[in-house]
Every structure is written in C-alpha cells, then in structure tokens.
C-alpha cells in the first residue's frame, strides 16, 4: 500500500523547500559560479584592472609542469592516506570487536584522536618528528636512518601522511566497528561450526558484508585527503620542501591568498570541482555496482 501526501496548496511545497534551496544556491551554486567566472578573468589583486582572458588561465596551468607535479603529489598522498587509514582502522576495529576485558576503554581511547583539530594534530606530529627536538626523530636517528623533513621531500610526505592518517583513524574505526557489530553472529558461528578458521571467516563472511561501510569510507577518506588535510599541510610543512607536499587544495590557497593570483587560483578550484564531480560519479557508477548491500 502506498501512502501519498498531496499538497492542497500550490505554494506550500515551494515554501517548505525554500530554505534548503536558498542554502544550496547561496552556499554552493553562487560560489561555484563565481569560481567559474573568475577562472576566465585575469586581474590584479584589488580588482581594478579586470580582463576577460577566456581559457588562458587553464592553458597556463596545464603548461606548468609544477601544477602537474602537484597532481602526482595529491594522488600519492590520497592513496596513502586512504589506504593506511582504512587498513589500520579496520584492523583496530576487528580487534576491538572481540569481547575483551576493558574493550570499552580501548574503544574510547581509539576515538579520542578525532577530537583533535587538524592543525593541532599536525603540530603534535611535527614536534615528535622534528629533527632536533622530536623524540621519534631521535629514535629514527638512533637506528642510523637519516631523517630531515625540512629538506627531504619523502620524509616530509611521510610526516603529513602519518598525521593525516592518525587524525582520521578514529572516524573510520567508529564506522567499521558499527559495521562489524551489525553482522549477524549466527553467520560467523555457523561458519565456525563448519570448521572455518578466523582468517577464512573474516575474508569470506565479514569482509564482504562490511563492503558497504568500506565503500562509504573510501569515498569519505579520499575526499578527506583531497580537501580536509589542508590544515595539516599548512601547519606541518607549508607545502615544502620544494613542492614535495603541495597538494592541489594547498596550491589553490597559496596562489590565491598568498600570491594573490586570483585568476589562476579560481581556475585551479574549477579543476578541483571537476575532479570531485568525476570521482563521485565514477565511484557510484562503477564501484558501487560491485558492492553488496
């Protein structure tokens, strides 16, 4: 039986929709439209000389090898952050899901890092890994490994990946734990009776049943790595050394707000917008089909 609500009044549905529409228009379509417009303009910072240049900003961007390098950095960075973030938190969730003494305490502690602001997390890790002050840097050096995130791009990337993953693990952990707890115990017990070991039970029952959660978290983590890690990069490395940790969203900020090149910055944010639209479409079209809900 289908329930249908019919509005008697003509304008009531529009009034009810209006707040949501207004929010979407003002906070999404308007800025996006501004970005599109500005990406076609070249102007001085104060907006006194404004010139329409068509796709010049984009042409300039894609002929800039450093912009292309920033793509590679972003790709490496987000794969590492999403990969490590999901793996580690799944592992932790599986362990915490077992009936252990004090499991509640573990769970609480594991959720804590999410309460730490990104910039604060970055500074914490920066202190730990600071070549002169950091205790972790001291240990690393004790093993005879050279460590200098100020000059070595690989080290700097490691640092921001560690901070970004650490900050995100709690979030992933919560979702994985909830996902694990919603898996019927009877299925696992049945498999155990049939003689499946813990590894086999995990891969053939738990992991497939967890796939909607995993898929959701994959999307969230990639978006996180693309956009929300800005504060971590800004506080820990500022995009350096060289441009080793300059991800796309950081470059938008740097070119727009520090270099005051609004045309190029707007063009870059349009490119980012296209990437996000593309990623979302791709993930829902292709990957979602293979996910069992």
């Amino acid at each position, binding site marked *: 039986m289908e329930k249908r609500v019919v509005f008697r009044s003509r304008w009531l549905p529009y009034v009810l929709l209006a707040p949501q529409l207004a929010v979407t228009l003002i906070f999404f379509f308007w800025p996006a439209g501004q970005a599109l417009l500005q990406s076609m303009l070249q102007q*001085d910072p*104060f907006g006194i000389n404004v010139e329409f240049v068509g796709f010049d900003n984009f042409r300039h961007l894609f002929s800039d090898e450093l912009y292309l390098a920033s793509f590679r950095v972003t790709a490496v960075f987000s794969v590492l952050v999403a990969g490590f973030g999901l793996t580690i938190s799944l592992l932790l969730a599986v362990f915490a899901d077992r009936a252990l003494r004090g499991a509640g305490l573990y769970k609480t502690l594991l959720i804590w890092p999410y309460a730490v602001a990104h910039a604060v997390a970055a500074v914490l890790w920066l202190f730990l890994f600071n070549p002169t002050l950091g205790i972790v840097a001291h240990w690393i050096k004790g093993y005879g490994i050279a460590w200098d995130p100020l000059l070595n791009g690989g080290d700097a990337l490691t640092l921001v990946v560690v901070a970004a993953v650490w900050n995100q693990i709690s979030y992933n952990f919560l979702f994985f734990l909830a996902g694990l707890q919603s898996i019927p115990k009877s299925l696992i017990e049945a498999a155990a009776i049939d003689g499946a070991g813990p590894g086999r039970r995990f891969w053939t029952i738990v992991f497939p049943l967890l796939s909607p959660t995993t898929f959701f978290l994959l999307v969230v983590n990639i978006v996180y790595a693309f956009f929300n890690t800005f504060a971590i990069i800004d506080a820990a490395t500022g995009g350096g050394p060289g441009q080793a940790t300059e991800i796309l969203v950081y470059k938008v900020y*740097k*070119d727009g707000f520090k270099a005051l090149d609004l045309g190029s910055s707007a063009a870059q944010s349009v490119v980012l917008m296209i990437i996000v639209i593309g990623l979302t479409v791709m993930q829902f079209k292709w990957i979602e089909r293979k996910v069992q809900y």
Partner: protein
Amino acid sequence: MSRRFVRVALLVALFGASAAAQAQTEIQWWHSMTGALNDRVNEFAKGFNESQKDYKVVPVYKGAYPESMAAAIAAFRAGNAPHILQVFEVGTATMMSAKGAIKPVSDVLREGGFKFDPKAFIGPVSGYYTNRKGEMLSFPFNSSTTVFYYNKDVFEKAGLDPNRAPTTWPEVVQAAAKIKASGASQCAYTTGWPSWVHVENLSAWHNVPIGTRENGMAGLDTRFQINSPLHVRHWNNLKEWSQKGYFTYAGRRNEAEAKFYSGECAMLTSSSAAQANINRNAKFKYAVAMLPYYADVAGAPQNSIIGGASLWVMSGKKPAEYKGVAQFLNFLMDPNRQAQWHQTTGYVPISPAAYEITKKSGFYEKNPGTDVSVRQLMLNPPTANSKGLRFGSFVQIRDIFEEEMENMLAGKQDAKAALDNAVRRGDELLVRFEKSAKE
C-alpha cells in the same frame, strides 16, 4: 514617576554619550604586530587618541603579513577597507601598482596641511617606498635588515676569539669547521629568511643586481639576474657547507632564530629585529656583526637592503578621515617616538634624527650591537643595485627561490641549475605581473 524619570534621564545620557562618540572620527589601522610589538602599536594609538579629541585610531591585529594583506584586499573589494594598512616590504610592488586602491602618503600629509619631506627618512628606507615619479607612496614604519649573530661562549669553547666576529664568508666557514670539529655546538651556522639573506641581501651587499631595470625600481619590464657567478658561487658554497654539516637549513621564515637562542646553532644570519627575542631567551653571551661578504668581490661590502613593513593609506575615504590619518602619520613622524620605537623593538631608526637621539642617549654603549643594522644600511650611499627592489608577485617568487634552494640542498640539483630554475620561474611571474599591472 521618579523611576520613569530616571529611565528617561539614563536614555538621554546614553544618547548623548553615543553622539559624542560619533563625533569622533574613527580611523581603522590594520597591522600584523604580535607580542611586545603589538603592545607598542597600541601605545602609539593610545598616545595619539589622548593627544587630541577629534580622531580615534583603532589598531586591529589582522594576522601575519600575507593574511592581513589578503584581508584588506577582500575588504577593499567589498568596499570597507581600513584607512591604514601595514604591508610587508615584498608586497610593495603589488600595492604600488594598485592605483585607485591607495592614496599616496605624500598627498595625504600635504592635504592634511603638513610638510612632508622624504629626506627626513634614511635613504635606503625612503627609496624603497618612493615611485619613479619621486612620490613617496607609503609611510615607513618598521624597517629591519639582515645581520650576523654569533654565540661568544661557543666561540670560546671552540678555541676561536670571541671578540672578533668573522667578517667574510671564508672566515665563517673556518669558524664553522672549528666548531664542528671541537663539538662546541651541535650546529655551526644557520639562517632565517633564506631568500632575503642569500639572494636579496647577498646581491645588494656585493653591489650586484638582483634584476634588470635597477632591481625593478625603474620599470615593470624587469627580469631576474640572480644566476650570476657570485650567486652561483655562494649557493654552491651553501650546498657544500650543508653536506659537510657546517650549515643547517632551518626553514623559510625565522625558525632559525630559535635554533640560535636555544644554543643549538652557534652562528646565525637573520633579521635585525630578532634581537629582542634573542635577548630575552639566550642564556649565553652573543654578539651582533655585519653580514659576511666575499672580500675578492669589488665593491663589497656595499650596503644592505631593508625588510619590514610600511603603512599604506587606502583610497575612497572621507576628507575628514584623511585629515585624521594625516595627523596620525605626523604624530608618528616625531623623531623621539621613532627613537623609542627603535630602542624598544630592534627595528632600525628610520630617520637620521631618531638615530642621533638614540646615539646621544648612550643607548648604543649600553646595548652593544643595536646599531649594527643601521650602520650597515648606511655604510655607503646606495647604488642602483642596493637601494632596494621592486618585483611584482614577490611573495610567490620568494617561495620559488626557497623551493629551489631546498631542492638544491636536498641534493636534487646543483647551484647553477637551482638558480637558473629560480630565474626562469621567477621571470614567468614577472611577465604575468607586467601584463596584469599597469602602473
């Protein structure tokens, strides 16, 4: 009845008070001074507000230099820019080409009925903020330059003469080698502001151009020349010293200063304004000296160039407000105030008068090293290579220079390649700026 009367009376009183407050013209001053410097800024505003009744200067901290500049630009576009904005020296070219957004301070002061003589400021300072037509566009406020600091205790431990500062780069390296060999400190030499010290001041100090067209001061069609033999030689040395452990790279801003005052590094090149902080934190004896140079370069040492910031007056305000701005700037012109600012902050005295006052007061004898910066700035009459620089997009370009230096120190490229890349990438931005800015 009586209660009602009290209420009405209160309302009237409130109204009267707010009317009186409205009669006072407010002048917004956006700045980037923190800590003790912020206190000094507030003192200036308070002193001015108490000295007269018509205007009220309201100083507002708007974040670090790039942030306050971005905030002011956004405010200008929205039609509510501050009256006075403090802009760091590398933003000078951007502000100068923003015709229509700013009002030259020389005009502001003249229209306000004050005499304004750019010669009241020391040459390297006034030249930096004067355009090609000879108009002084902004008001010098806090100027500094780069100097050399060394830890006397470490020098003594390493068997060096603590009363003799190394004057040339080869001497610095000798000292570094001795410090390193004796283990007197963990790190021998480090630097703050890599581009300001090892590109901009290196050039001026050796009377070598940074860019064509008098370092950009004679025209927007300037291009970089920092891949000269001197630059390559010096950067190559930095690379070699870094590999040998004589030089430790600390970061693009003033991170190195903490490495010095914590005792970790024995020698430092950084802003002269770091002295206040070093004084407060260092638990050892130290001395300030002029920047090292290469003795075989003809004309070295010349004079160093300034950093710091100046005050810009934004356009589109009411005439009455400009009158107040003029009065306030005139208030800041007072040599006694400038001398006090210099003595309490470590910024250089921006006028010869302030320098003389400080000298006569015996301040330099009591605080040795505080006059190094101003002596270094006035060592010789500035040349086309040493009077300053004016490059568009220079905030971004400094980042480029530093990125290339980092890539060189990380062993990815040699000095020549690093500087060639710096020139190529810098020039691209200069071309772009030339197109967008019509002076």
